[in-house]
């Protein structure tokens, strides 16, 4: 196991209780959660910048922190690379000096050679003599990355690496970061509140809500089948309703006034049901509809959920149309679909909403610690 984290730390308005592991040396784990949920604090604890109240942090075969055995390695000896949100380049040093000061090597010459190699790998050759403030945001990030890699860390910690960048710069940098992560021999922990970044860059996801971490899931699992209400919301699920189980696979949804069947296994107490805005289908009301069934559905054909709703309002978004649908009980459903698809429906006032059983996500509410 590459990294084991199991820590508790009392913060001013909640207690951080985070527990997760990085299994293999190439795994990229995302810590995903709203801002202020304790993600960055977790990274700081792993790096040794902050001290947990109790718990354990083990990297490979080295114990970095263990409150019971009174182990608390200083950050200098943890060999953990930390990419700060602001990159934390030393402003009074040149690019080369910045990278060289992190570089491993017996002599100054070796360290400089190492620094130059890392700068070349980050395509910063020619900028060695510049000050960080004269670099573009993307160059600064690559310079910070070069400095970290030159120090031969066993683990990478990435704290919202794209938050300081303009939208249009992000994509190129994301591609580069993906390459860097692929080429890096150790594991990585990636803190973000952007689920799309996480989906593209990470292998597994651990969500944190007000300091509480949930069991880790693979990225695919996390987006297709979140288990808890908070995970569903963090993963971008737009429609949730309080729900009551009324059959082995049926849930009465309070806010929507409908009963939905699911083909997904429901383990644990189900308190809510979630529907993704993209995974609904609509047909004009009054038409006879061929109810589509998914490949994985366990429910027999014809038992797909069918709800009639009134169109409450239509919002034109950049590349899609968002239709707010009023359910029988009055609660709204958000449906997001292709602009052309919506146009082809002819702007109906009432629609039939079709929900495949495999898209009905039973969720349980995780009650955060008081």
């Amino acid at each position, binding site marked *: 196991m590459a990294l084991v984290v199991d820590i508790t730390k009392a913060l001013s308005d909640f207690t951080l209780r985070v527990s997760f592991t990085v299994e293999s040396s190439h795994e990229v784990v995302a810590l995903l959660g709203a801002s202020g949920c304790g993600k960055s604090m977790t990274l*700081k604890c792993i*790096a*040794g*910048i902050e001290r947990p109240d109790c718990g354990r942090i083990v990297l490979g075969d080295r114990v970095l922190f263990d409150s019971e055995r009174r182990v608390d390695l*200083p*950050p*200098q*000896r*943890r*060999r*953990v*690379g*930390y990419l*700060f949100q*602001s*990159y*934390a*380049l*030393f*402003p*009074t*040093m040149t690019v080369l000096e910045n990278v060289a*000061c*992190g570089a491993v090597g017996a002599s100054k010459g070796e360290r400089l050679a190492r620094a130059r190699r890392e700068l070349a790998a980050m395509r910063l050759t020619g900028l060695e003599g510049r*000050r*960080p*403030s004269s*670099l573009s*945001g993307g160059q*600064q990030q690559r310079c910070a990355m070069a*400095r*970290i890699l030159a*120090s031969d860390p066993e683990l990478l910690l990435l704290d919202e690496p794209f938050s*300081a960048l303009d939208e249009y710069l992000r994509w190129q940098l994301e591609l580069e970061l993906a390459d860097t992560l692929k080429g890096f021999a150790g594991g990585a922990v990636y803190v973000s509140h952007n689920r799309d970044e996480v989906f593209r860059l990470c292998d597994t996801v651990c969500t944190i809500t007000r300091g509480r971490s949930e069991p880790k899931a693979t990225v695919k699992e996390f987006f297709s089948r979140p288990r808890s209400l908070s995970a569903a919301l963090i993963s971008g699920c737009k429609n949730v309703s309080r729900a009551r189980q009324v059959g082995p696979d049926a849930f009465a949804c309070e806010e929507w006034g409908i009963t939905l069947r699911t083909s997904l296994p429901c383990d644990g107490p189900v308190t809510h049901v979630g529907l993704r805005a993209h995974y609904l289908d609509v047909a004009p009301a009054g038409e006879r509809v061929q109810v589509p069934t998914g490949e994985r559905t366990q429910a027999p054909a014809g038992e797909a959920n069918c709800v009639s709703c009134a169109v409450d309002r239509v919002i034109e978004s950049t590349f899609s149309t968002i239709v707010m649908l009023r359910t029988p009980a009055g609660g709204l459903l958000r449906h997001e679909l292709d602009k052309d698809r919506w146009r082809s429906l002819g702007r109906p006032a009432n629609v039939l909403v079709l929900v495949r059983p495999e898209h009905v996500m039973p969720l349980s509410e995780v009650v955060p610690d008081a």
Partner: protein
Amino acid sequence: MDWYPLLNSLRIAALSTAVVYAVGIGLANVVARAPRLVKGALDVVLTLPLVLPPTVVGYLLLIVLGPRRPVGAWFMDAFGVRLTMTWYSAILATVVVSFPLMYRTARGAFEAFDETLSQAGRTLGKSETWIFWRVKMPCCRQGIVAGAVLAFARALGEYGATSMIAGYTPGITATVSTTVYQLWRTGDDALALRWVLVNLAISSVVLLALNYLNARVRPAQRGAV
């Protein structure tokens, strides 16, 4: 014109600035990172000489360092060194009076310092000493240099405490400021005016230097992002 007062003033100010520079930076660094309560208490004590009348500082110094007072007597016995009424006595006065200027400007600079830079240094395996001298001090240079210049200027112009602890002995403890007073008192207005002009010139140069440093250092201080 006897230039001794100018030379004496300059060496007093230079030596006192050296002391204040080292102690001021050290204490500013400690206070900037101290817990709030300790910080508040230390801050009052360390800033007090800034608001006290120099004569009060001089009085307090004489109480402690006078030849018949405990510390002063001990210095006399142990080293045969007299702490009052010598040219270097004035250094004691200027150190106390100019210290808050160095301390407060340096503390301000340290508090404005982005601590993530220190954290980055630590995760890169760098020692606290390295981080202080290679990252923190260069980043805070502007404030520190400004503090040193202000402390130097204040030491150069110190009169109240100096006149009490060093007095005015021509050719021995005379400084520019005590000389101006002495000349005016004895009615030598013409010579007094000359010293006033010398003083004005030095003060202008110091302020110009301060502005020049501020203008020059600032562009390099802009951090990443």
